[in-house]
């Protein structure tokens, strides 16, 4: 099968998943509406936090309020993409495993990581995608003399940030295979992800700034939105650009290797 055929096959599959998710989500319309409200509340809380903090300080982590708004809207924008594409699949991952659904997926002539992570698309997060995207553009328009061509950096940096979330969450979920029952890992993830929702500048106050480098290069949660925001707000740092390109490749390779290791240790859950 040629590369083009492979792409076409995955495209058709993904289109089917999208259609099925759309129908499933809109089946319970009131529930769908409430879910959208929940997302708006969640995103609002993140904005409110900084709006309240800046009532009492003019700069935080080296950024003023206008700059911080760019960061937080970017973080929420990246988060909304992740929520649309992958979150529902990661939430049901452990259940799939317990029920033996993984067995079936492993036998299909499709990449199992694709099947595990793409079957369900969260339609209720689509409005948040547009709202946070709009918020980001608005926040950037508040900056004096903002060069809109800088937005092009996001073509590289948003996928880079998404790779951190995808690989991190997937690796933690894959660990469930080794532990059989590891619901606690979900909670660990939610706590770790909060590192990504804070500007990396605040970590400069910990361990003489060393912790900030950990957040960029070892547990790269700062690459989710904080460093991409720096591409928009500050002069280009080539080191971050190189890392932004290299890191997804490293993370995806390591994730694939870890997944293979986990599958080798997998004992079927079904009869």
């Amino acid at each position, binding site marked *: 099968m040629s590369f083009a055929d492979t792409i076409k096959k995955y495209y058709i599959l993904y289109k089917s998943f999208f259609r099925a998710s759309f129908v499933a989500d809109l089946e319970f319309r009131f529930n769908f509406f409430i879910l959208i409200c929940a997302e708006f509340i969640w995103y609002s*809380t993140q904005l409110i936090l900084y709006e309240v903090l800046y009532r*009492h300080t003019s*700069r*935080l982590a080296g950024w003023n309020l206008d700059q911080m708004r760019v960061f937080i809207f970017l973080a929420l924008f990246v988060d909304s993409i992740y929520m649309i594409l992958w979150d529902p699949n990661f939430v049901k991952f452990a259940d799939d495993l317990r029920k033996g659904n993984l067995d079936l997926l492993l036998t299909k002539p499709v990449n199992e990581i694709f099947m595990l992570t793409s079957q369900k698309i969260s339609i209720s997060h689509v409005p948040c995608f547009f709202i946070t995207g709009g918020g980001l553009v608005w926040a950037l328009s508040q900056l004096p003399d903002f060069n809109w061509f800088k937005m092009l950096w996001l073509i590289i940096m948003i996928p880079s940030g998404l790779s951190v979330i995808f690989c991190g969450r997937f690796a933690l979920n894959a660990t469930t295979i080794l532990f059989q029952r590891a619901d*606690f890992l979900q909670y660990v993830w939610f*706590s770790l992800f909060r590192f990504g929702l804070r500007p990396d500048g605040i970590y*400069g*106050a910990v361990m003489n700034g060393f912790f900030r480098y950990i957040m960029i290069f070892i547990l790269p949660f700062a690459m989710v939105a904080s460093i991409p925001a720096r591409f928009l707000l500050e002069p280009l740092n080539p080191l971050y650009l190189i890392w932004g390109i290299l890191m997804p490749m490293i993370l995806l390779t390591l994730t694939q290797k870890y997944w293979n290791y986990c599958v080798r240790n997998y004992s079927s859950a079904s009869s």
Partner: protein
Amino acid sequence: MLQPLISVGIELILWLAIFNATDSLTIGGFDRNMYLAYVVWAPFLGRVGISWMYESMMVEEVASGNINIVLTRPISFYEYYLSQLMGYKFTTTIVSIIIPLIITQIYQLPINYSRLPLAFSLVICYLFLIHNLSFIVSTLAFFMTKVKSFTLVKNLSLWLLAGELVPIDLMPAVLAKILLILPFSSGVYIPVAYMTGRCQIDLIYQGFISVFVSFILSSILCRLLWSKGLREYTGTGA
């Protein structure tokens, strides 16, 4: 144990950065240690004063029809889950209070231990209100197929309204006044503010009154929804 430690750690870092960034030694009239104490205790009380697991179980019981079993027991659905919730909260609180206590000791944070009993009494009263809210959400399963989203909306709202995200006294004055009148601040902000010396006993009394009034009102709603729900409900199965 890891999750609360990470959460508290991140918030501690955030507030340290805020105080590093500001020229003033106080924010909103309170010093750094007072905020650190707030950050350590607020998530702890926030976890005590919320019900995810039991609310999900209650919703599931109603939605799946398993409530048939509970209805035949010599204890009501409300009491059955109230006792479970209180038992669970009691044991988890006893265990998890170690974390804020240790951090408080290490950093010598300003906690007035003589105020702990009254502050915790308010949280216990607040838990009754929380159980009522969970009960209300679960009765919605009599009328709707999917109600889990209500739990999400309710708990996210409580997180914001209780003052766990940010101390209520930092918010704009009008908003802060409204939030303090609402009963939800009795779950986190009022007890923590009282323990850390941000407020005096009059706010605690106000919290008790607010929680009591809300409990009465929510109990009426619970009874109405339960009666109406049971009339709609058709139990099936062997």
